[in-house]
């Protein structure tokens, strides 16, 4: 991580908070609707499938595959600009939902669509005295 510029720190509010609180504990939290059984991501107060209340939180297995990815070569984003090239990916979890992450601990040229990946956690910084941790993904089998 760069010592001079900070990467963006998400500002989680309301129902967004449990996802980031779980990450602080080293858990990847997603939602499952107790009424219709569908998995939900991004987290919501109302299930987008059956419109009932408050999908319940559960821990994902933390494994999935790369659905698509891009190697970012030009970036003006704080903290990322001096780390090009880096990989931004959409990862489909084994539970079926998809999320965005960087694919880390691998050379960008070695990333492939369909590659099995597993979650890892990055301490991103502090916001208002609170530690913010974000999920990232790395190839299954990469050194811990």
């Amino acid at each position: 991580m760069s010592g001079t510029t900070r990467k963006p720190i998400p500002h989680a509010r309301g129902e967004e908070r449990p996802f980031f609180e779980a990450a602080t504990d080293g858990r990847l939290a997603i939602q499952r609707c107790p009424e219709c059984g569908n998995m939900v991501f991004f987290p919501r107060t109302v299930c987008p499938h059956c419109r009932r209340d408050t999908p319940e939180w559960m821990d994902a297995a933390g494994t999935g595959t790369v659905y698509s990815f891009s190697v970012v070569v030009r970036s003006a984003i704080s903290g990322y600009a001096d780390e090009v090239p880096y990989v931004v990916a959409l990862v489909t979890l084994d539970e079926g939902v998809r999320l965005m992450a960087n694919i880390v601990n691998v050379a960008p040229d070695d990333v492939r669509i369909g590659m099995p990946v597993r979650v890892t956690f990055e301490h991103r910084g502090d916001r208002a005295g609170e530690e913010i941790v974000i999920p990232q993904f790395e190839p299954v089998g990469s050194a811990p």
Partner: protein
Amino acid sequence: MIPLEQVAIVGVAESEIGKVPHQTPAGMMAVAARAAAADAGLSLDDVDGIFATTPYHGVTVTTLSEYLGIRPRYYDGTDFGGCSFILHLRHAAAAIAAGMCDVALIAYASSQRSDRGRLVSSSETSAYELPYGAVYPITHNALIAARHMHDYGTTSEQLASVAVAARTWASRNPRAYAREPITVDDVLASPMMSSPLHRLDCCLLTDGGAAIIVARRDRVVDTSRAIHVLGAAESFTHRNIVAMPDLTTSAAAVTGPAAFEQAGLRPDDMDFAQLYDAFTIGPIIELEDLGFVPKGEAAAFFAEGRTQPAGDLPVNTNGGGLAYTHPGMLGLFLLAEAVRQLRGESGEAQVPDARVGLVHGIGGALASAATAVLARPEVRAA
């Protein structure tokens, strides 16, 4: 279905485009609005419905009404992303049919080139996306392009051919921002931005404004230049890219068939298509989803030159967002070029005997969509 047979597009104009440091977005909209009204044989005093949105103003319709000194009786500031103005056309038809206004002004402008030389957008980034360094909207379109390549074997050379075609059309358009022809190799040699998209796979970043006037048929001054709307539709698939069900299928798969059905026409009937080309992958997916070619075949369609001036489906005949102009939101400029083509006013880029054409816009990263099928007035009479 929204009744379209009571309205016509009667006025079209653009402000100066490219670099316009001497005018604000409101100023460019005002210039374009006045010219569009004049083009319609009307004046701004006739405007009693206003449709506009920009990232510059909290409530663009009041900003522009105040600027122009008009007090319309109908206001619609719907922001649906870059295709908003194609949606506004449909909404204006509905408002006119409902008696809520008679003469509608649709306007847009941006000074993003002069401001910072970067996209000016009011789009927020979700907490789940913000931490990952995705460069909006390039990386998002790159993710879409990468998946299309994976699923259908689309190549970087084929993506580049979309930009090559845009320049070929732009070379015939004296108003175009980038008129020098380029080759596939030029695109591939341009700097990689966010793989697989190179700099020349990305649209221009310009200033510019546009306006159109939509009127009830009994307010049409010159019926020979009035352009009719035969079909129109709007839809969406997602707001956040993580929620896009299939990265290679856009909402055009809904709006295309709906607009064609309302028009009673098929893709084969179109004399041209004006397709939103913020990135080279856009027109490829749009052409497939709209039904012009089967899924996975549009990249070859572009690479074979079939959208170029001598091709069987002219696409983006002014050079589009890749070569003509792209002031942040392109929708109104797509409509303007379609109207010029149907009037026979596109000069060296004129498609011979253009009678019916399609306009398709997107918003966000292939997230929202609006489609319109436009025609010369005699088409429906025939």
